[in-house]
């Protein structure tokens, strides 16, 4: 089943959460690659195609938001989801397509990824999807 639904780059500075997150995504049929820092993620993005980036927010040297900004500046059509342990949405995450709390559980994460991917799939090649429209609560 792996690799059928798309390639996801999973970014987290901590090994265990990164590995576990990769593992549960694998169960959903995604091809999952892991990066231990924003810098590593940017390098990997330069080398191959990914369908979506899922990054932790609080990381040393480059935060999830910093990474998102970098990605969006060079690859505006690359979907980015930030996942965070804070319970409140930080004010500077608006570059990302979606902000998900870590405690929402696996299903919420799966749903979020599917929605973002779907949004990008239906929009035209040139158009950047409206991030607001992706918000499940609206």
């Amino acid at each position, binding site marked *: 089943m792996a690799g059928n639904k798309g390639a996801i780059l999973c970014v987290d500075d*901590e090994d*265990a*959460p990164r590995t*576990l*997150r990769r*593992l*549960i995504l694998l*169960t959903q049929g995604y091809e999952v690659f892991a990066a231990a820092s924003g810098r590593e993620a940017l390098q990997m993005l330069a080398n191959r195609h990914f369908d979506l980036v899922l990054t932790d927010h*609080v990381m040393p040297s480059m935060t999830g938001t910093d990474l998102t900004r970098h990605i969006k500046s060079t690859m505006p059509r690359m979907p980015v989801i930030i*996942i965070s*342990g*804070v*319970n*409140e*949405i930080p*004010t500077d995450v*608006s570059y990302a397509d979606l902000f998900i*709390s*870590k*405690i*929402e*559980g*696996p299903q919420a994460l799966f749903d979020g990824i599917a929605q973002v991917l779907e949004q990008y799939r239906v929009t035209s090649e040139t158009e950047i999807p409206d991030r*607001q429209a992706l*918000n*499940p*609560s*609206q």
Partner: protein
Amino acid sequence: MSRHEQANILMVDDQPGKLLSYEAILRDLDENLIQARSAREALDVLLRQDVAVVLMDVSMPDIDGFELADMMHQHPRFQKIAIIFISAVHLTDLDRIKGYQSGAVDYISVPVVPEVLRAKVSVFAELHRKTRQLEQLNRELEQRVEERTEEIRELNSQLEQRIAELETIMQVLPVGVAVSQDPECRSITCNAALSELFGVEPGDNMVVTKDEIQGRPFEIYQQGRRLEIEALPLQMSAKTGQQLGSMELEIRRVGGDSSYLLANAIPLFREDGKVRGAVGAFFDMTRRKQLENLLRERADLLELATEAVMVRDMSGVLRYWNAGAEALYGWRREDVLGKKIDDVLHTRVQADGRGSDGVDSALAENGRWSGDLIQVTRDGIEIVVASRQALKEDGSAVLEINRDITAQLRAEDALRRTERLAAMGRVAGVIAHEINNPLESITNTFYLLRQHPSLDDEARYYAKLGEEELIRVSHITRQTLGFYRESKDPVEVSLSELLDEILEFQARRLEISHIAIDKKYLSRGAIQGFPGELKQVFLNLIGNAVQAMPDGGRLRLRVSEASCRNGRNAGFFISVTDTGSGIPPEHAKHLFEPFFTTKSNKGTGLGLWISKGIVQKYGGSIRFRSCQRPGGNATSFQVFLPHSHRNATETVPPVAQARSSQTELMGKSSGRE
């Protein structure tokens, strides 16, 4: 015949026979007849006795009659004594006798005709008597005149003294006095005090005429209007013949200050009842006026003061109560003056909670006291005041100045609590992050574990249980250690629908606990906000209400419009009321503090704290009221949420938010009602 006073008749003759014959002739006259045999003897008698008539023989040896008469005429006492010469008719004698033109001198020629002698002597004796009587009368008259003159002199002297006294009094009198001796007041004299008051030279005529008034160094006003001459007190009194009392005059000195006088005037009348002048008295009230102004200024200042200023006498009876006191305590002046201060304010000392006896004894000892007092306003609200009190110097009263520091203390208290809350919030945020990270990993682990093909059904069941417990943990951290905002922009949320959703969610618990629902939505309650966090607020309140009624009860929900008032925005009131155990007053203060719980191990102690935080973000407020009484308790939480609030979409420092609505959050506890 002897009804008359006997006159002395002196008969002088050197021949005893003649003397005897005269005596015989004159005996019937009933006079006192004295004989003298010579001029010398006669003089001797004259010196000793008052003699009316001297009957003398012209020709006598030694000193003859003429010589005696001459001697008598030289002596003032004897000048007026009548002399009758007895003489032979000699021409020379007659000529000499005629020479005595003045005086009572007569003669009888020899031979003596007894009738003639008797008649002449009798006439002179009578003359003498009349003269004596006249003299007597004269003397008496003179004496009387003398006596009267003395009396008058005495009276005059007294009068002069009195006038001098009056003059002195006039001059030393501190009251100005003016006197006019004519009804037109053309001439007015005044005393030193008045000269000084008017700034004129002492002794100046104070007359004021139309021409002259221009030259005066002063102008006279009454109640701000310049007075015409006729309206001046002395002039008016003289003109009308009426007494004038207590005219208030202002003397404006040219290029200088003003004096204030209180003038009285009284007319002077002649005997015929016509006015002849007037007297005026002028009291200088300048000092009094200045003092009055000063007092009025002081009084105005006291009224301006925002502090409560009070004066009480030594028995505690209120004598003064300023506007500040009216505003602070709600009692009007007329309500409290004359009452005892303790009956009005129920003063207690904050430090020891005791009555004001300690203050009184400190005042008696030191004359001063300052400190914080707890007092009760007219509305029955306890306030804390910073008080300064001082005993009046004469020990007759106590002055008290109080400043309301209730709000200040509350603000300080609130600030302390807010700071504590903010610190708690920061800690909670860190804790949330630290818990959430491993929580995700464990949740993911259980997810993988549960699906692992190597597990048998039993192991899979255990994994499922573990996963379910983890969901609870996630739920708790989400609910208590922060709030997850599901969207970045607020949307329209219907508060009534939100409440219904919660009721549906809690339906089973409500049913189990036999709780009846009483809901009244007077409005849909549509506001701009985030459904998740708003749901959390009411889930907390309803959850608490349900937990407070384990043995059943009634849960009442209300939604109503709140109009714009007192600077509050328009919005909605949402109240959640239960008939549960109630909130004891001692808990009321801590209700909104983090980690405060009455549910021991069941609750986190964060529910209300979080709810309050959310409501504050919306610019709203939460207050509660709890009644505990035998018939049944009731606890009601009322939430106010504005239609929209800009802060709901912005990140506002929590401290600033907390301050802005702190007073609303004080919560009224009426548990003792």
